[in-house]
């Protein structure tokens, strides 16, 4: 594998790091000027799921449901850490009900009614803990992935399941067209097909895609034609959803020049921790990937990198979102970014921290793709920090944007914080005041 290493640019890299990461207290573009702290959890909060107007946070043993920060229902029942959570909307009696499915390390699956807080369904004594959940709205079934893949209907009846796979088990799933499912299992992506014959559903593995060289951490849906996967050593592969061929292959190497063999080994060792793709998110055109403590923005259609920042946080980035580019990290902060055109496009400041390989229709990983060295990437933009949200005292696990209503973050410090646009909230309150005045006829 050929690495495109930019020598002698390191100094600038560090300058860039220190200069850009210190934003200071003056943040005119940061609109989050109001916060509300939600207390309710007694352990690390790992997941947030939007259920209608509610957001649900998750922790070790219980799930809390908050409604606009006020009312709180505690869904208590699991005896061990919750491993996956998903909202599930189904039609019953003409009305859409939104429920919450949770999976836990105690080898149970539960269906909760978030309005009443009741545990509606419960399945225990699973053979293995479930690691991920996927709802297929079209088929009105849902899938659980652990050591095996199980298909359930809305009444919590097991429809079918695959044979035992491996110890690693399924860590992530995405839905593909024509009733196909892509599941990440360790270094492989397995394509399953759901065969519907009448009321019976049969699931079978169709293809094993073994192009990743390390564990796949992230698997996302990009658009109807593409999905993406990211691995522990920084491999980002864009796949075609229909014929499962590689559309693009990026190996993101946050490399630094090696001085000698000894130190290179050492550095490599560090880098392997650093460049793991923890999380990706996409809006159908762009992908943002959390790579180590850096961020990487990739244009899927152009098959080119848009912007990147090797050190975006002081520690590993855990979650990202693209609509309003934000990332959260183990360092306890949420940072907001803006894509800005580089002032001097002729001199892409440090375009060399990645290797780029475009391969098309590649089926075997043995045949090394022809290395294409791109000294200058046209249209490369820079990621500028426009604001950060500091509040949590532990790693920010995840955040969830509720558009103008605000942003909810959850953290290992057991807290949830709703960040709101102060100006907007103030206007809302004014409206509420006048509404109340009108009701009381005091106007």
């Amino acid at each position, binding site marked *: 594998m050929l690495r495109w290493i930019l020598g002698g640019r390191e100094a600038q890299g560090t300058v860039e790091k220190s200069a850009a990461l210190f934003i200071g*207290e003056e943040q*005119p573009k940061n609109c989050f000027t*109001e*916060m*509300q702290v939600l*207390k309710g959890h007694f352990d690390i909060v790992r997941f947030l799921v939007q259920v209608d107007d509610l957001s649900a946070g998750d922790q070790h043993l219980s799930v809390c449901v908050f409604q606009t920060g006020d009312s709180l229902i505690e869904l208590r029942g699991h005896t061990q850490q919750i491993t996956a959570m998903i909202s599930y909307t189904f039609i019953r009696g003409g009305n859409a009900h939104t429920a919450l499915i949770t999976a836990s390390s105690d080898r149970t699956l539960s269906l909760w009614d978030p309005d009443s807080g009741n545990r509606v369904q419960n399945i225990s004594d699973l053979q293995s803990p479930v690691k991920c959940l996927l709802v297929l709205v079209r088929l009105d079934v849902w899938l659980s992935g652990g050591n095996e893949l199980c298909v359930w209907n809305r009444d919590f009846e097991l429809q079918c399941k695959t044979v035992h796979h491996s110890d690693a088990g399924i860590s992530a799933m995405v839905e593909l067209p024509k009733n196909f499912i892509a599941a990440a299992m360790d270094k492989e992506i397995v394509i399953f097909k759901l065969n519907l014959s009448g009321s019976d559903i049969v699931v079978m593995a169709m293809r094993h895609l073994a192009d990743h060289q390390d564990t796949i951490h992230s698997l996302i849906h990009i658009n109807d034609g593409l999905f993406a996967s990211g691995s522990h050593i920084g491999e980002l592969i864009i796949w075609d959803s229909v014929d499962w061929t590689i559309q693009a292959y990026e190996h993101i190497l946050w490399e630094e020049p090696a001085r000698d063999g000894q130190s290179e080994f050492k550095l490599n060792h560090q880098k392997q921790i650093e460049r793991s793709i923890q999380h990706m998110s996409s809006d159908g055109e762009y992908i943002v990937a959390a790579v180590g403590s850096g961020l990487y923005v990739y244009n899927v259609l152009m098959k080119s990198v848009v912007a990147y920042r090797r050190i975006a946080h002081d520690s590993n980035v855990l979650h990202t979102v693209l609509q309003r580019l934000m990332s959260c990290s183990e360092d306890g902060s949420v940072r907001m970014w803006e894509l800005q055109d580089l002032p001097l496009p002729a001199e892409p400041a440090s375009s060399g921290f990645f290797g780029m390989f475009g391969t098309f229709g590649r089926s075997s990983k043995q045949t090394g793709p022809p290395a294409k060295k791109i000294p200058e990437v046209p249209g490369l933009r820079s990621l500028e920090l426009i604001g950060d949200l500091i509040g949590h*005292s532990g790693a920010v696990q995840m955040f969830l944007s509720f558009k103008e209503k605000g942003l909810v973050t959850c953290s290992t410090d057991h807290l949830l914080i709703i960040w709101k646009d102060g100006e907007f*909230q*103030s206007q809302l309150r004014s409206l509420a005041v006048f509404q*109340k005045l009108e009701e009381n006829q005091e106007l």
Partner: protein
Amino acid sequence: MIGSPDVVALTKEDDFGDSFTDPCSLPEEFSVPLFAHAANANPWTKTSYAKFSKDFILVSEFSEQVGPQPLLTIPNDPKVCGTFDLNYFSLRIMSVDYQASFVGHPPGSNYPKLNFVADSKVVLGDSKEGAFAYVHHLTLYDLEARGFVRPFCLAYISADERKIMHQFQELSSEFSKASEFLKSGNRKAFANELEKKLKDLEYTRSVLHKETELQKMNNGCYSTQAIEKANELANVEKSIYEHKDLLRQITSYPSRKKDVDFVQHEMEKPADTSVIDDTLNSNHSDVADKTVETESESRKSSYTPQLIKAKSAKCFDKRLKTMEELCDASFFHQTLEQLNIIEKSFRGDLCLIYTSQIDRALLSKQSVTSFLFEAERDWEYGGTSTNFSISSNNPTVPILNISGEPLSLDSYTTCIDVDHIKPGVESMEGPPESSTSDITQETSEAADTETKGSFSSDKSIEAFGGVSPSSLQANYFDGLERKSKVSIASPSENTSCSVAVPQMTSDGNLVPMDAACCIGQDGFIFEEPLPELAQECCGDTVVNQEPLSLLQGDPALQVDYTLEESALAESPNMGLTFSELNTEEVAKINIEDVSDSTSFMSASTSSDQAVSPFTYGSALTLKQKKKAGHSALRFIRQYPFAQQAIFCLLSGRTLVILGVDEGTVRKLVNALFIFVPNLGKYGETVQPWLSSPFQLTDLQRWKLIGLQRAASPAGSSILHSLNRYSRYISILDCDNKTLRCPPYKGTLVSHLADHRTQIKRGSTYFLHVQGMLTQLTAKAFLYTFCHHIHLPMDINDQGSVTSRRTNFLLQLGYTVEESKIVHYLSELIKQHYIQGSSKGGNQSFCFNYTTSYLYKI
């Protein structure tokens, strides 16, 4: 803080009075009645004419054995009444009422009848004694008393006639409450008494019956003894009948006309009232024997009936019941409590009472914004605020003039005028320039020593305030400080009072000083006392020195007093300051008297305790806030960045005061807490001393935090949290004397906290602050409820709303920073209005992204 007239009336030397030009004059009903001869008389000295030092409440009885006699006074302190002849005055007031309460056999009725007469309320004046009184007559029932009634009266005695007249309605309603307590308790006790008596009578009857039977058996029906016994029996029967009738009457009393307070009282003491209700509601007359027995079994099982004579004993043979016995003990104490409340709330000058009543009445209409900076004072005054209606007319008051002299206000005041040395008009308005610097120096000196001295010492320094500023040399100061600590051990409230008294009265020692002061000051017109009045003065020396002689009982105070005297002697320009003292000190007494007398914190205990008003569970009082005004004044003089710190508090940015020494930190917190908007009744938004790292949620809760700086691991984690949340907080480091906060440029806060301010008194400064904050609140109110700036023209019109808001605030004359203050207050008002007064547990917390700077001294 509504009462800006208050400020004008009480401050005489600050710049506020000068700059205060009221653009729209107050409506008539809010204006405070002016002192009739304000031009040439000192309005504060009126009390000195009377033979008592301050207003008090007298409870007296017209005893059927000894005639009118005083029972108790509130406050129960012989000092208060001085040489005032209570016996004489009791006679006066008790000889008034008697239209009422005839109990006995009314014509045409065979049985005694209880009259439930309404209390009578009159105003009495005795200009010879210099005493005026609101007198509230009531009768209590006593089985053993003549006609079953004992007349009592409650009197509020004051030297200020206008006070009685103006406050007649309020006095009447408050005393009615007290009287109602007494009478309810009395009805209960009377019913019990009757039941006991009935039991006795029943028992007697049965015994007599047996004896009669025995007599009949032995001696035949018509023997003399038998007839005697039969007569006796008939008497007892009649007596039983009468008593049953009385019991029926007392229990059927239409006691259910509940006023609000009574209901509250009942709620407080459910156990008690259930008993009363039982007693009062069950109709004894139907099956009296049974009900009495069954019902009273539980309560009076211990009572064994006695054989009694049908005729009651002669009136002079028996001991009359005390008032406490006449009423139920708990009711009696309730009454005393109420009387104490009355005494407290009507203490001080009329002008002040009136202003505060207007203040309260207006405040009650301002629930939308009053939570921001107003102390919640409802608990202090009970129902007065609701009853009070603003009226400039005097209520029609029945006046009785005992002394027969013409009792016009004019004659009364003129009498005082000649008696007292007239201070000039100028003395009311502004201090002579020369003395200001001295005072300032004094205050700063006090501020400097604050670190080593305890708060209590500061307090007493304030008490001696204007006495000897120029002579407060270091050694002197120490002396004072040492002494003051001793003096504080005496009831703290009286220190300032009693020290001030001899200065007011023109007693022998001080007359020269007085004269000096009058000559020394331009504005003073010194009038030689008229010969006969001078004579009277001499004759009155005993009276005038009365407080002094009482002082002598307290060695500590005596020491202070002499110390002070020598200070006076040494000081060359003493006259100036002393003249100031004359008006200023008394004004201060009045202010302080209004709030409360029961020393709200034991000043003699540990200094830390005394410094902080934040004792958990107790509401912040106005008095504490006024004291805080003093600390605040020192703070703004001492720290050049005080404006920035105050700006932080007003704009809702949490201010952390970091320091090693708890006392210092608490002192600073104490100085700043009056600037915290929405302080809460108990000061919930202030944390005076925190020794653990604070959390994010704490920032939401507290707006002013005193934080311990420690070298321990805990201390480092505190510093870490400070660092982490530095963008949300401002840090005042009181060890290094630095402040890290966003910059502030503007005139608003500099008016509020001008380190060159001429204001010297903490309470005056507090009023100044309150005035400014009220202004600010009014602007915030305007900003909040001007709907044309907040409502979007159409759905996607957010941007224009924002710009309209900004423009509105700019038009109000606020800079960008000051807009933040108004904006923050407005947000608080909105939240408060939407959520109601209950503070929702989970409120959002607003902040700004602005750069902080480090300010140093």
